[in-house]
């Protein structure tokens, strides 16, 4: 079976020719190829968006957009915040690591295997290396975190300030007058009541 004959009738294929002849009765008389169907879109001409529909859509869109904006801004804020926290944690960790590094000044195991004169040299170099590392670490740590005194200075005023505020209260003239009047009234009332109390107790 030749495929060429099947597609554009070039060459010869006896099998297909037989089939053609046997099915000749059902052959189409129309020689022109059928036209492709025209593209049609279903459109309801009666549908026209009303003003209320438009407004509600606009409102919904605006609400959705603002909500999205809020969510995005919260997300950004959270990311920035976590970044700051990570930075603070890292610096704190650096601090703690630094203190750990300072204490164990151990000689590398390799130096033990070497003969005595070289051991001393190795020890010295190891100490120097560690010292240098420590110094480098100190430089990397921010000054505010590395220096404990500055942290303490920053914290202390926050605790003390409210107490200092409570001692000095600025009053307006009206407030001062009202306060004085109340105190005078209470003083007189108190003294009179005390007088009565003393008199009654004295009589008893």
């Amino acid at each position, binding site marked *: 079976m030749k495929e060429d004959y099947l597609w554009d009738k070039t060459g010869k294929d006896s099998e297909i020719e037989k089939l053609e002849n046997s099915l000749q009765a059902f052959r189409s008389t129309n020689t022109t190829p059928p036209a492709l169907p025209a593209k049609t879109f279903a459109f309801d001409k009666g549908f026209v968006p009303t003003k209320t529909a438009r407004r509600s859509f606009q409102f919904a869109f605006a609400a959705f957009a603002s909500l999205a904006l809020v969510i995005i801004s919260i997300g950004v804020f959270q990311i920035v915040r976590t970044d700051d926290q990570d930075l603070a944690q890292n610096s704190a960790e650096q601090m703690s690591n630094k203190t750990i590094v300072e204490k164990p000044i151990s000689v590398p195991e390799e130096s033990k295997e070497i003969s005595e004169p070289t051991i001393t040299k190795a020890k010295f170099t190891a100490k120097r290396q560690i010292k240098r590392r420590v110094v480098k670490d100190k430089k990397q740590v921010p000054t505010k975190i590395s220096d404990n005194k500055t942290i303490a200075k920053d914290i202390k005023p926050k605790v003390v300030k409210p107490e200092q505020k409570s001692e000095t209260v600025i009053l307006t003239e009206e*407030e001062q*007058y009202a306060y004085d009047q109340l105190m005078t009234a209470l003083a007189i009332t108190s*003294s009179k009541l005390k007088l009565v109390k003393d008199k009654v107790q004295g009589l008893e």
Partner: protein
Amino acid sequence: MKTFINHSFKFIVLSAFMLITITAANAQDARLRFDNLKGLEDRARDVVEVNIDGKLLSLAKRVLVKVNDQDAKKVGEAIKGLEGIYVRIYNFENANEYNIADIDLIRSQLTLPGWVKLANVRSKKNNQKIDVYTMFTGDVMSGVAVVISEDKSIALVNVIGPIDIDLLAELGGKLNIPRIDIENEEETPQDKE
């Protein structure tokens, strides 16, 4: 249905108005009228007149809150429900310089229903008469009245609103309240001169 709602609404409004009126009337009941004492101001040597209520009192209370002090807090707690204090003190140069009927008029206000006598002291020394009355609205004290009359002085104190008398008596000279000792006032050298 509409008429029912309208009537209900009217009834509620009327009830609320009546309640407010009754409450206000009760609050006013504890207040003494000192109008008849105006004539004493000219005759008296020293006059002390203190009226503290309404906005002035609330302002003073706010100051007590503002002053973040332990003593101020105690005073503030003692006068939390206070509605007003009215004080009149008249000191005269000579004995019997005022008309005792004026004070009796004040005392007669305390015989009205609601007032309960708490203390009554009569002393021949300086012809001293002390009356302490309290007014209760239910179980809550709504007013105190102190009337003290002597030969040379009259003192009237009217406190409106719930207040702890014992605590108030102890407040003088202890907290921010200055101590004014009436008994010693006459014995001071300045007075003798």
